[in-house]
Protein backbone atom coordinates (compact mmCIF):
# COMPACT_ATOMS: atom_id res chain seq x y z
CA UNK A 1 0.00 0.00 0.00
CA UNK A 2 1.56 3.26 -1.10
CA UNK A 3 1.42 5.96 1.51
CA UNK A 4 0.98 8.77 -1.02
CA UNK A 5 -2.18 7.09 -2.36
CA UNK A 6 -3.60 6.72 1.12
CA UNK A 7 -2.86 10.38 1.75
CA UNK A 8 -4.56 11.43 -1.48
CA UNK A 9 -7.65 9.36 -0.62
CA UNK A 10 -7.88 10.91 2.83
CA UNK A 11 -7.58 14.44 1.47
CA UNK A 12 -10.06 13.82 -1.33
CA UNK A 13 -12.77 12.16 0.74
CA UNK A 14 -12.63 14.12 3.97
CA UNK A 15 -13.03 17.86 3.30
CA UNK A 16 -10.67 19.94 5.35
CA UNK A 17 -8.62 17.01 6.58
CA UNK A 18 -4.98 17.93 6.85
CA UNK A 19 -2.59 15.05 6.21
CA UNK A 20 1.17 15.50 6.23
CA UNK A 21 3.77 12.97 5.24
CA UNK A 22 6.38 12.45 7.98
CA UNK A 23 9.59 11.21 6.42
CA UNK A 24 11.60 8.65 8.37
CA UNK A 25 15.34 8.94 7.86
CA UNK A 26 16.29 5.49 9.17
CA UNK A 27 17.03 2.51 6.89
CA UNK A 28 13.63 1.07 7.79
CA UNK A 29 12.07 3.83 5.63
CA UNK A 30 8.73 3.43 7.40
CA UNK A 31 7.21 6.83 6.66
CA UNK A 32 4.05 7.90 8.38
CA UNK A 33 1.01 10.13 7.98
CA UNK A 34 0.30 12.93 10.41
CA UNK A 35 -3.46 13.47 10.58
CA UNK A 36 -5.01 16.50 12.24
CA UNK A 37 -6.91 15.51 15.33
CA UNK A 38 -10.23 17.12 14.39
CA UNK A 39 -10.62 14.60 11.58
CA UNK A 40 -8.90 11.67 13.32
CA UNK A 41 -11.95 9.48 13.81
CA UNK A 42 -13.30 10.11 10.31
CA UNK A 43 -9.89 9.33 8.84
CA UNK A 44 -9.69 6.11 10.88
CA UNK A 45 -13.08 4.96 9.56
CA UNK A 46 -11.91 5.62 6.02
CA UNK A 47 -8.62 3.79 6.60
CA UNK A 48 -10.50 0.80 7.91
CA UNK A 49 -12.60 0.91 4.76
CA UNK A 50 -9.35 0.63 2.79
CA UNK A 51 -9.03 -2.87 4.28
CA UNK A 52 -6.66 -1.78 7.02
CA UNK A 53 -8.66 -4.05 9.29
CA UNK A 54 -5.98 -4.72 11.89
CA UNK A 55 -4.57 -2.07 14.21
CA UNK A 56 -1.54 -3.72 15.67
CA UNK A 57 0.32 -1.25 17.82
CA UNK A 58 -0.86 1.91 19.54
CA UNK A 59 1.58 3.96 21.53
CA UNK A 60 2.49 7.47 22.58
CA UNK A 61 5.63 9.56 22.33
CA UNK A 62 6.47 12.59 24.43
CA UNK A 63 8.14 15.51 22.67
CA UNK A 64 9.00 18.29 25.13
CA UNK A 65 9.77 21.79 23.91
CA UNK A 66 13.05 21.74 22.07
CA UNK A 67 15.33 24.14 20.25
CA UNK A 68 16.29 23.23 16.73
CA UNK A 69 19.46 24.72 15.30
CA UNK A 70 19.66 25.12 11.54
CA UNK A 71 22.58 26.46 9.60
CA UNK A 72 21.45 28.45 6.59
CA UNK A 73 23.91 29.37 3.88
CA UNK A 74 23.21 32.49 1.88
CA UNK A 75 25.13 34.56 -0.60
CA UNK A 76 25.59 38.22 0.10
CA UNK A 77 27.56 40.92 -1.58
CA UNK A 78 29.90 42.56 0.89
CA UNK A 79 32.10 45.39 -0.40
CA UNK A 80 31.45 44.36 -3.97
CA UNK A 81 32.63 40.80 -3.39
CA UNK A 82 30.17 37.93 -3.30
CA UNK A 83 30.62 35.90 -0.14
CA UNK A 84 28.91 32.90 1.29
CA UNK A 85 27.67 33.60 4.78
CA UNK A 86 26.57 30.93 7.20
CA UNK A 87 23.92 31.88 9.67
CA UNK A 88 22.75 29.89 12.63
CA UNK A 89 19.01 30.06 13.13
CA UNK A 90 17.47 28.79 16.32
CA UNK A 91 13.80 27.90 16.30
CA UNK A 92 11.87 26.79 19.34
CA UNK A 93 9.50 23.91 18.65
CA UNK A 94 6.74 23.82 21.26
CA UNK A 95 6.19 20.57 23.08
CA UNK A 96 3.41 18.11 22.29
CA UNK A 97 2.35 14.52 22.86
CA UNK A 98 1.96 12.19 19.95
CA UNK A 99 0.12 8.91 19.42
CA UNK A 100 1.28 6.43 16.81
CA UNK A 101 -0.92 3.71 15.28
CA UNK A 102 0.56 0.84 13.26
CA UNK A 103 -2.10 -0.43 10.87
CA UNK A 104 -1.99 -3.62 8.84
CA UNK A 105 -4.33 -5.37 6.47
CA UNK A 106 -5.07 -8.97 7.39
CA UNK A 107 -7.12 -9.55 4.25
CA UNK A 108 -4.54 -8.14 1.84
CA UNK A 109 -1.54 -9.02 4.03
CA UNK A 110 -0.06 -5.54 3.70
CA UNK A 111 1.36 -2.94 6.00
CA UNK A 112 2.37 -1.23 8.08
CA UNK A 113 0.63 2.08 7.44
CA UNK A 114 1.79 4.33 10.27
CA UNK A 115 -0.58 7.07 11.39
CA UNK A 116 0.15 9.75 13.98
CA UNK A 117 -1.83 12.45 15.75
CA UNK A 118 -0.53 15.25 17.94
CA UNK A 119 -1.94 17.15 20.89
CA UNK A 120 -1.86 20.94 21.11
CA UNK A 121 0.60 21.00 24.01
CA UNK A 122 1.69 18.91 26.98
CA UNK A 123 -0.38 20.51 29.69
CA UNK A 124 -4.01 21.52 29.14
CA UNK A 125 -4.71 20.69 25.50
CA UNK A 126 -4.06 16.96 25.55
CA UNK A 127 -7.27 15.53 24.09
CA UNK A 128 -7.23 13.30 21.03
CA UNK A 129 -10.06 11.30 19.48
CA UNK A 130 -10.15 7.67 20.58
CA UNK A 131 -9.95 5.17 17.74
CA UNK A 132 -11.27 2.32 19.91
CA UNK A 133 -14.73 2.57 18.25
CA UNK A 134 -13.01 1.68 14.97
CA UNK A 135 -10.42 -0.85 16.22
CA UNK A 136 -11.12 -2.63 19.51
CA UNK A 137 -7.42 -3.51 19.78
CA UNK A 138 -6.75 0.10 20.75
CA UNK A 139 -8.81 -0.23 23.95
CA UNK A 140 -6.09 -1.30 26.40
CA UNK A 141 -3.31 0.43 24.51
CA UNK A 142 -5.04 3.82 24.58
CA UNK A 143 -5.68 3.30 28.27
CA UNK A 144 -1.97 2.72 28.64
CA UNK A 145 -1.14 5.93 26.76
CA UNK A 146 -3.57 7.77 29.07
CA UNK A 147 -2.03 6.15 32.13
CA UNK A 148 1.64 6.65 31.33
CA UNK A 149 1.57 9.81 29.17
CA UNK A 150 -1.58 11.64 30.20
CA UNK A 151 -3.25 11.78 26.80
CA UNK A 152 -7.04 12.00 27.14
CA UNK A 153 -8.88 9.96 24.53
CA UNK A 154 -12.24 11.42 23.67
CA UNK A 155 -14.84 8.71 23.02
CA UNK A 156 -12.97 5.89 24.76
CA UNK A 157 -15.47 3.51 26.42
CA UNK A 158 -13.49 2.91 29.61
CA UNK A 159 -10.68 5.41 30.13
CA UNK A 160 -9.05 4.50 33.46
CA UNK A 161 -5.50 3.94 34.60
CA UNK A 162 -4.38 0.46 33.57
CA UNK A 163 -0.88 -0.24 34.91
CA UNK A 164 -0.43 2.37 37.63
CA UNK A 165 -2.80 2.30 40.58
CA UNK A 166 -5.87 4.47 41.08
CA UNK A 167 -4.92 7.60 42.95
CA UNK A 168 -1.53 7.91 41.28
CA UNK A 169 -1.30 11.38 39.83
CA UNK A 170 1.76 11.69 37.59
CA UNK A 171 2.62 10.28 34.14
CA UNK A 172 5.74 8.13 34.45
CA UNK A 173 6.65 7.75 30.79
CA UNK A 174 7.01 11.49 30.21
CA UNK A 175 10.55 12.65 29.57
CA UNK A 176 10.57 15.08 32.49
CA UNK A 177 9.07 12.69 35.05
CA UNK A 178 10.92 12.67 38.36
CA UNK A 179 10.07 9.69 40.57
CA UNK A 180 9.34 10.50 44.21
CA UNK A 181 11.68 9.05 46.84
CA UNK A 182 10.93 5.41 47.55
CA UNK A 183 9.91 6.03 51.16
CA UNK A 184 7.50 8.86 50.36
CA UNK A 185 4.31 6.85 50.17
CA UNK A 186 2.10 9.91 50.27
CA UNK A 187 3.66 11.28 47.11
CA UNK A 188 3.17 7.90 45.46
CA UNK A 189 -0.55 8.29 45.99
CA UNK A 190 -0.84 5.69 48.73
CA UNK A 191 -3.70 6.39 51.09
Amino acid at each position, binding site marked *: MILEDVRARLQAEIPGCQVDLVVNGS*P*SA*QNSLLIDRQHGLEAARLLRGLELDYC*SNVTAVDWPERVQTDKIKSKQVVDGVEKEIEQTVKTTIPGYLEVVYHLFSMSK*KEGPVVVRMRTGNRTDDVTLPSLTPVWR*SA*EFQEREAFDLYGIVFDGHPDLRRI*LMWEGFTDYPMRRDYVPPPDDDLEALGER
Partner: protein
Amino acid sequence: MGPQHPSTHGVFRMDVRLDGERVMRLKPVFGYLHRNHEKIAETASYLAAIPYTDRLDYLCSMTNNWGYALAVEKLAGLTVPERAEYIRVIVGELTRLQNHAGMVGFLLQDMGASGTPLMYAFRERERVLDLFESLSGARMMCNYMRFGGVRVDCSAEWLSEAAKLVAGFGSFLDEFEKLLTGNEILMARTQGVGVLPRELAINAGVTGPGLRASGVNYDVRKVDRYGIYERFEFRVPLGEHGDVFDRYMMRVLEMRETLKILEQALRDIPAGPIMDPKARLRGLRPKVGEAYGRIESPKGELGFYLISDGTPNPYRYRVRPPSLINLTVLEDMCLGHNIADVVVILGSIDIVMGEVDR
Protein backbone atom coordinates in the same frame (compact mmCIF):
# COMPACT_ATOMS: atom_id res chain seq x y z
CA MET B 1 -10.84 -13.58 41.09
CA GLY B 2 -7.18 -13.24 41.80
CA PRO B 3 -4.56 -11.91 42.07
CA GLN B 4 -3.37 -14.91 44.08
CA HIS B 5 -5.63 -17.48 42.44
CA PRO B 6 -3.59 -20.39 41.04
CA SER B 7 -5.48 -20.34 37.73
CA THR B 8 -4.55 -16.76 36.88
CA HIS B 9 -1.04 -17.63 35.68
CA GLY B 10 0.68 -15.07 37.84
CA VAL B 11 -0.63 -12.00 39.60
CA PHE B 12 -3.70 -11.17 37.54
CA ARG B 13 -7.09 -10.11 38.86
CA MET B 14 -10.50 -10.23 37.27
CA ASP B 15 -13.38 -8.17 38.54
CA VAL B 16 -16.23 -10.60 37.91
CA ARG B 17 -19.92 -9.99 38.49
CA LEU B 18 -21.97 -13.17 38.73
CA ASP B 19 -25.59 -14.18 38.60
CA GLY B 20 -25.47 -17.48 40.41
CA GLU B 21 -22.60 -19.10 38.53
CA ARG B 22 -23.09 -17.19 35.30
CA VAL B 23 -20.68 -14.42 34.35
CA MET B 24 -22.50 -11.12 33.77
CA ARG B 25 -19.51 -8.80 33.62
CA LEU B 26 -15.75 -9.28 33.70
CA LYS B 27 -13.12 -6.58 33.87
CA PRO B 28 -9.44 -7.53 33.99
CA VAL B 29 -7.21 -5.59 36.39
CA PHE B 30 -3.53 -5.25 35.51
CA GLY B 31 -0.36 -3.77 36.88
CA TYR B 32 0.75 -6.05 39.70
CA LEU B 33 3.98 -6.83 37.87
CA HIS B 34 4.44 -3.39 36.31
CA ARG B 35 8.03 -2.17 36.47
CA ASN B 36 7.98 0.26 33.53
CA HIS B 37 10.17 -1.88 31.33
CA GLU B 38 9.90 0.72 28.55
CA LYS B 39 11.29 3.52 30.70
CA ILE B 40 14.15 1.32 31.89
CA ALA B 41 15.09 0.52 28.30
CA GLU B 42 14.94 4.20 27.34
CA THR B 43 17.52 5.06 29.97
CA ALA B 44 19.89 2.26 28.89
CA SER B 45 21.86 1.63 25.71
CA TYR B 46 20.51 -0.49 22.87
CA LEU B 47 22.60 -3.45 23.97
CA ALA B 48 21.61 -3.17 27.63
CA ALA B 49 17.93 -3.62 26.81
CA ILE B 50 18.40 -7.21 25.58
CA PRO B 51 18.56 -8.91 29.01
CA TYR B 52 15.46 -6.94 30.05
CA THR B 53 13.53 -8.36 27.10
CA ASP B 54 14.21 -11.87 28.50
CA ARG B 55 11.94 -10.95 31.39
CA LEU B 56 8.93 -9.93 29.30
CA ASP B 57 7.50 -13.32 28.44
CA TYR B 58 9.83 -15.22 30.72
CA LEU B 59 9.00 -18.59 29.17
CA CYS B 60 10.16 -17.45 25.73
CA SER B 61 13.27 -15.32 26.17
CA MET B 62 14.70 -16.41 22.81
CA THR B 63 11.80 -15.03 20.79
CA ASN B 64 11.75 -11.82 22.84
CA ASN B 65 15.42 -11.29 22.02
CA TRP B 66 14.66 -11.98 18.40
CA GLY B 67 11.85 -9.43 18.15
CA TYR B 68 14.00 -6.73 19.68
CA ALA B 69 17.06 -7.60 17.60
CA LEU B 70 14.91 -7.49 14.45
CA ALA B 71 13.63 -4.00 15.30
CA VAL B 72 17.14 -2.68 15.97
CA GLU B 73 18.38 -4.25 12.74
CA LYS B 74 15.64 -2.42 10.84
CA LEU B 75 16.46 0.82 12.62
CA ALA B 76 20.20 0.63 12.06
CA GLY B 77 20.22 -1.19 8.71
CA LEU B 78 22.13 -4.26 9.87
CA THR B 79 22.15 -7.62 8.14
CA VAL B 80 22.34 -11.05 9.75
CA PRO B 81 24.71 -13.76 8.48
CA GLU B 82 23.09 -16.91 7.19
CA ARG B 83 24.29 -19.23 9.94
CA ALA B 84 22.96 -16.86 12.59
CA GLU B 85 19.58 -16.79 10.82
CA TYR B 86 19.44 -20.59 10.97
CA ILE B 87 20.40 -20.63 14.64
CA ARG B 88 17.68 -18.06 15.33
CA VAL B 89 15.07 -20.20 13.61
CA ILE B 90 16.22 -23.29 15.53
CA VAL B 91 16.15 -21.69 18.98
CA GLY B 92 12.99 -19.74 18.14
CA GLU B 93 11.09 -22.83 17.08
CA LEU B 94 12.41 -24.81 20.06
CA THR B 95 10.97 -22.00 22.19
CA ARG B 96 7.62 -22.44 20.45
CA LEU B 97 7.70 -26.18 21.18
CA GLN B 98 8.29 -25.77 24.91
CA ASN B 99 5.82 -22.89 25.18
CA HIS B 100 2.99 -24.74 23.46
CA ALA B 101 3.66 -27.98 25.35
CA GLY B 102 3.65 -26.07 28.62
CA MET B 103 0.52 -24.14 27.65
CA VAL B 104 -1.40 -27.36 26.95
CA GLY B 105 -0.19 -28.78 30.25
CA PHE B 106 -1.37 -25.70 32.15
CA LEU B 107 -4.70 -25.68 30.31
CA LEU B 108 -5.36 -29.24 31.44
CA GLN B 109 -4.22 -28.35 34.95
CA ASP B 110 -6.83 -25.56 34.90
CA MET B 111 -9.46 -28.12 33.92
CA GLY B 112 -8.62 -30.23 36.91
CA ALA B 113 -6.41 -32.87 35.29
CA SER B 114 -4.02 -32.45 38.18
CA GLY B 115 -0.44 -33.15 37.39
CA THR B 116 -0.19 -35.75 34.69
CA PRO B 117 -0.40 -33.73 31.44
CA LEU B 118 1.60 -30.85 32.91
CA MET B 119 4.35 -33.15 34.14
CA TYR B 120 4.58 -34.85 30.75
CA ALA B 121 4.83 -31.42 29.10
CA PHE B 122 7.46 -30.24 31.54
CA ARG B 123 9.51 -33.40 31.01
CA GLU B 124 9.84 -32.40 27.34
CA ARG B 125 10.32 -28.74 28.20
CA GLU B 126 13.28 -29.68 30.42
CA ARG B 127 15.03 -31.18 27.41
CA VAL B 128 14.65 -27.94 25.47
CA LEU B 129 15.88 -25.94 28.45
CA ASP B 130 18.90 -28.24 28.73
CA LEU B 131 19.74 -27.33 25.14
CA PHE B 132 19.34 -23.62 25.87
CA GLU B 133 21.55 -23.97 28.93
CA SER B 134 24.39 -25.60 27.06
CA LEU B 135 24.11 -23.01 24.28
CA SER B 136 23.64 -19.75 26.17
CA GLY B 137 24.51 -20.58 29.78
CA ALA B 138 21.00 -19.96 31.07
CA ARG B 139 17.86 -22.03 31.01
CA MET B 140 15.28 -19.28 30.90
CA MET B 141 16.97 -15.87 30.80
CA CYS B 142 19.04 -16.72 27.74
CA ASN B 143 20.16 -13.20 26.68
CA TYR B 144 21.30 -14.92 23.52
CA MET B 145 20.60 -12.85 20.42
CA ARG B 146 22.36 -9.67 19.40
CA PHE B 147 21.46 -7.18 16.71
CA GLY B 148 23.37 -8.41 13.68
CA GLY B 149 23.56 -12.05 14.79
CA VAL B 150 23.76 -14.22 17.89
CA ARG B 151 26.12 -14.19 20.87
CA VAL B 152 27.85 -17.57 20.64
CA ASP B 153 28.03 -20.23 17.96
CA CYS B 154 26.56 -23.68 18.43
CA SER B 155 28.71 -26.77 18.14
CA ALA B 156 28.12 -29.81 15.94
CA GLU B 157 27.35 -31.82 19.09
CA TRP B 158 24.71 -29.30 20.10
CA LEU B 159 23.08 -29.59 16.69
CA SER B 160 23.01 -33.37 16.87
CA GLU B 161 21.50 -33.19 20.37
CA ALA B 162 18.84 -30.84 19.01
CA ALA B 163 18.20 -33.22 16.11
CA LYS B 164 17.74 -36.08 18.60
CA LEU B 165 15.19 -34.04 20.54
CA VAL B 166 13.30 -33.16 17.35
CA ALA B 167 13.29 -36.77 16.20
CA GLY B 168 11.81 -37.92 19.50
CA PHE B 169 9.29 -35.13 19.96
CA GLY B 170 6.80 -36.53 17.45
CA SER B 171 6.24 -39.67 19.48
CA PHE B 172 5.74 -37.56 22.61
CA LEU B 173 3.05 -35.61 20.74
CA ASP B 174 1.38 -38.84 19.65
CA GLU B 175 1.30 -40.03 23.22
CA PHE B 176 0.13 -36.64 24.47
CA GLU B 177 -2.69 -36.52 21.93
CA LYS B 178 -3.73 -40.09 22.69
CA LEU B 179 -4.10 -39.04 26.29
CA LEU B 180 -5.89 -35.76 25.60
CA THR B 181 -7.43 -35.01 22.20
CA GLY B 182 -10.18 -37.63 22.23
CA ASN B 183 -10.72 -37.37 25.96
CA GLU B 184 -14.39 -37.01 26.80
CA ILE B 185 -13.92 -34.62 29.69
CA LEU B 186 -11.62 -32.38 27.69
CA MET B 187 -14.12 -32.21 24.85
CA ALA B 188 -17.02 -31.51 27.19
CA ARG B 189 -15.15 -28.71 28.92
CA THR B 190 -13.79 -27.04 25.77
CA GLN B 191 -16.09 -27.51 22.79
CA GLY B 192 -18.41 -24.57 22.28
CA VAL B 193 -16.84 -22.75 25.23
CA GLY B 194 -15.39 -19.26 24.84
CA VAL B 195 -16.22 -18.84 21.18
CA LEU B 196 -14.37 -15.96 19.52
CA PRO B 197 -16.00 -14.86 16.24
CA ARG B 198 -13.68 -14.19 13.34
CA GLU B 199 -14.58 -10.49 12.87
CA LEU B 200 -14.16 -9.69 16.54
CA ALA B 201 -10.81 -11.47 16.63
CA ILE B 202 -9.48 -9.33 13.78
CA ASN B 203 -10.92 -6.08 15.12
CA ALA B 204 -9.62 -6.67 18.63
CA GLY B 205 -6.11 -7.36 17.37
CA VAL B 206 -5.98 -10.94 18.64
CA THR B 207 -2.91 -12.63 17.18
CA GLY B 208 -1.16 -15.96 17.27
CA PRO B 209 -2.87 -19.34 17.72
CA GLY B 210 -5.95 -17.63 19.22
CA LEU B 211 -6.56 -15.76 15.97
CA ARG B 212 -5.94 -18.77 13.76
CA ALA B 213 -8.32 -20.88 15.85
CA SER B 214 -11.03 -18.47 14.64
CA GLY B 215 -10.12 -19.29 11.06
CA VAL B 216 -8.03 -16.25 10.10
CA ASN B 217 -5.01 -17.21 8.06
CA TYR B 218 -2.47 -14.76 9.47
CA ASP B 219 0.96 -15.85 10.62
CA VAL B 220 3.72 -13.21 10.66
CA ARG B 221 6.22 -15.90 9.64
CA LYS B 222 4.26 -16.29 6.40
CA VAL B 223 3.17 -12.66 5.93
CA ASP B 224 6.44 -10.83 6.62
CA ARG B 225 8.76 -13.75 5.84
CA TYR B 226 11.24 -12.21 8.22
CA GLY B 227 14.60 -13.90 8.63
CA ILE B 228 14.74 -16.91 6.35
CA TYR B 229 11.24 -18.30 6.86
CA GLU B 230 10.54 -18.31 3.11
CA ARG B 231 12.97 -21.23 2.79
CA PHE B 232 10.96 -23.61 4.94
CA GLU B 233 7.96 -25.62 4.02
CA PHE B 234 5.29 -25.58 6.68
CA ARG B 235 1.57 -25.09 6.88
CA VAL B 236 -0.49 -22.75 9.02
CA PRO B 237 -3.17 -24.72 10.90
CA LEU B 238 -6.58 -23.04 11.04
CA GLY B 239 -9.56 -23.63 13.30
CA GLU B 240 -13.25 -23.59 12.41
CA HIS B 241 -15.17 -22.78 15.56
CA GLY B 242 -12.88 -20.46 17.49
CA ASP B 243 -13.64 -22.18 20.79
CA VAL B 244 -11.27 -23.40 23.50
CA PHE B 245 -10.96 -26.79 21.84
CA ASP B 246 -9.79 -25.20 18.58
CA ARG B 247 -7.26 -23.10 20.47
CA TYR B 248 -5.99 -26.28 22.11
CA MET B 249 -5.77 -28.03 18.73
CA MET B 250 -3.88 -25.07 17.21
CA ARG B 251 -1.09 -25.56 19.72
CA VAL B 252 -0.83 -29.27 19.02
CA LEU B 253 -0.88 -28.83 15.25
CA GLU B 254 1.58 -25.93 15.39
CA MET B 255 4.02 -28.09 17.34
CA ARG B 256 3.89 -30.62 14.51
CA GLU B 257 4.57 -27.89 11.91
CA THR B 258 7.38 -26.54 14.08
CA LEU B 259 8.99 -29.97 14.02
CA LYS B 260 8.99 -29.80 10.21
CA ILE B 261 10.72 -26.41 10.28
CA LEU B 262 13.28 -27.68 12.78
CA GLU B 263 14.07 -30.75 10.70
CA GLN B 264 14.70 -28.58 7.63
CA ALA B 265 16.74 -26.00 9.54
CA LEU B 266 18.91 -28.61 11.26
CA ARG B 267 19.51 -30.30 7.92
CA ASP B 268 20.42 -27.14 5.98
CA ILE B 269 22.36 -25.04 8.48
CA PRO B 270 25.54 -23.77 6.78
CA ALA B 271 28.93 -22.94 8.29
CA GLY B 272 30.00 -19.32 8.51
CA PRO B 273 30.13 -16.23 10.71
CA ILE B 274 27.43 -15.53 13.29
CA MET B 275 27.73 -11.74 13.55
CA ASP B 276 27.46 -8.91 11.06
CA PRO B 277 30.97 -7.36 11.09
CA LYS B 278 29.40 -3.90 10.74
CA ALA B 279 27.33 -4.29 13.91
CA ARG B 280 28.70 -2.28 16.81
CA LEU B 281 27.20 -3.77 19.92
CA ARG B 282 28.58 -1.20 22.34
CA GLY B 283 27.85 2.42 21.61
CA LEU B 284 25.45 1.75 18.76
CA ARG B 285 24.05 5.07 17.55
CA PRO B 286 21.45 4.52 14.83
CA LYS B 287 20.58 7.42 12.54
CA VAL B 288 17.65 9.60 13.53
CA GLY B 289 14.46 7.77 12.63
CA GLU B 290 12.14 5.03 13.75
CA ALA B 291 11.33 1.40 13.03
CA TYR B 292 8.68 -1.16 13.91
CA GLY B 293 9.81 -4.78 13.84
CA ARG B 294 7.59 -7.74 14.61
CA ILE B 295 7.83 -11.50 14.83
CA GLU B 296 5.44 -14.38 15.39
CA SER B 297 6.19 -15.23 18.99
CA PRO B 298 4.49 -18.29 20.51
CA LYS B 299 1.87 -15.97 22.06
CA GLY B 300 1.16 -13.89 18.94
CA GLU B 301 2.58 -10.84 17.22
CA LEU B 302 5.41 -9.48 19.33
CA GLY B 303 6.42 -6.04 18.06
CA PHE B 304 9.06 -3.54 19.06
CA TYR B 305 8.75 0.12 18.09
CA LEU B 306 11.94 2.17 18.40
CA ILE B 307 12.69 5.84 17.81
CA SER B 308 16.29 6.94 17.61
CA ASP B 309 17.43 10.52 18.14
CA GLY B 310 21.03 9.70 17.27
CA THR B 311 22.16 9.11 20.86
CA PRO B 312 23.23 5.75 22.36
CA ASN B 313 19.84 5.35 24.10
CA PRO B 314 16.58 4.77 22.26
CA TYR B 315 14.42 7.91 22.45
CA ARG B 316 11.31 5.75 22.50
CA TYR B 317 11.19 2.03 23.16
CA ARG B 318 7.83 0.33 22.96
CA VAL B 319 6.83 -3.31 23.25
CA ARG B 320 3.66 -4.45 21.57
CA PRO B 321 2.71 -7.22 24.01
CA PRO B 322 0.56 -9.98 22.45
CA SER B 323 -0.47 -11.28 25.89
CA LEU B 324 -2.03 -7.95 26.88
CA ILE B 325 -3.82 -7.31 23.61
CA ASN B 326 -5.18 -10.87 23.41
CA LEU B 327 -6.89 -10.19 26.75
CA THR B 328 -9.02 -7.43 25.15
CA VAL B 329 -11.66 -10.01 24.24
CA LEU B 330 -11.59 -11.94 27.53
CA GLU B 331 -14.89 -10.45 28.67
CA ASP B 332 -16.59 -11.14 25.32
CA MET B 333 -15.52 -14.77 25.45
CA CYS B 334 -16.60 -15.31 29.07
CA LEU B 335 -20.04 -13.64 29.15
CA GLY B 336 -22.82 -16.13 29.80
CA HIS B 337 -20.49 -18.95 30.75
CA ASN B 338 -20.00 -20.49 34.18
CA ILE B 339 -17.33 -19.21 36.50
CA ALA B 340 -15.44 -22.51 36.10
CA ASP B 341 -15.23 -21.86 32.34
CA VAL B 342 -13.52 -18.50 32.93
CA VAL B 343 -10.50 -20.41 34.20
CA VAL B 344 -10.41 -22.56 31.08
CA ILE B 345 -10.95 -19.64 28.69
CA LEU B 346 -8.17 -17.63 30.33
CA GLY B 347 -5.89 -20.66 30.11
CA SER B 348 -6.63 -21.02 26.40
CA ILE B 349 -5.44 -17.45 25.68
CA ASP B 350 -1.98 -18.26 27.03
CA ILE B 351 -0.74 -15.19 28.88
CA VAL B 352 2.40 -14.42 30.81
CA MET B 353 2.10 -11.55 33.27
CA GLY B 354 5.68 -10.41 32.78
CA GLU B 355 4.64 -9.36 29.30
CA VAL B 356 1.13 -8.12 30.14
CA ASP B 357 2.28 -5.69 32.83
CA ARG B 358 5.79 -4.95 31.60
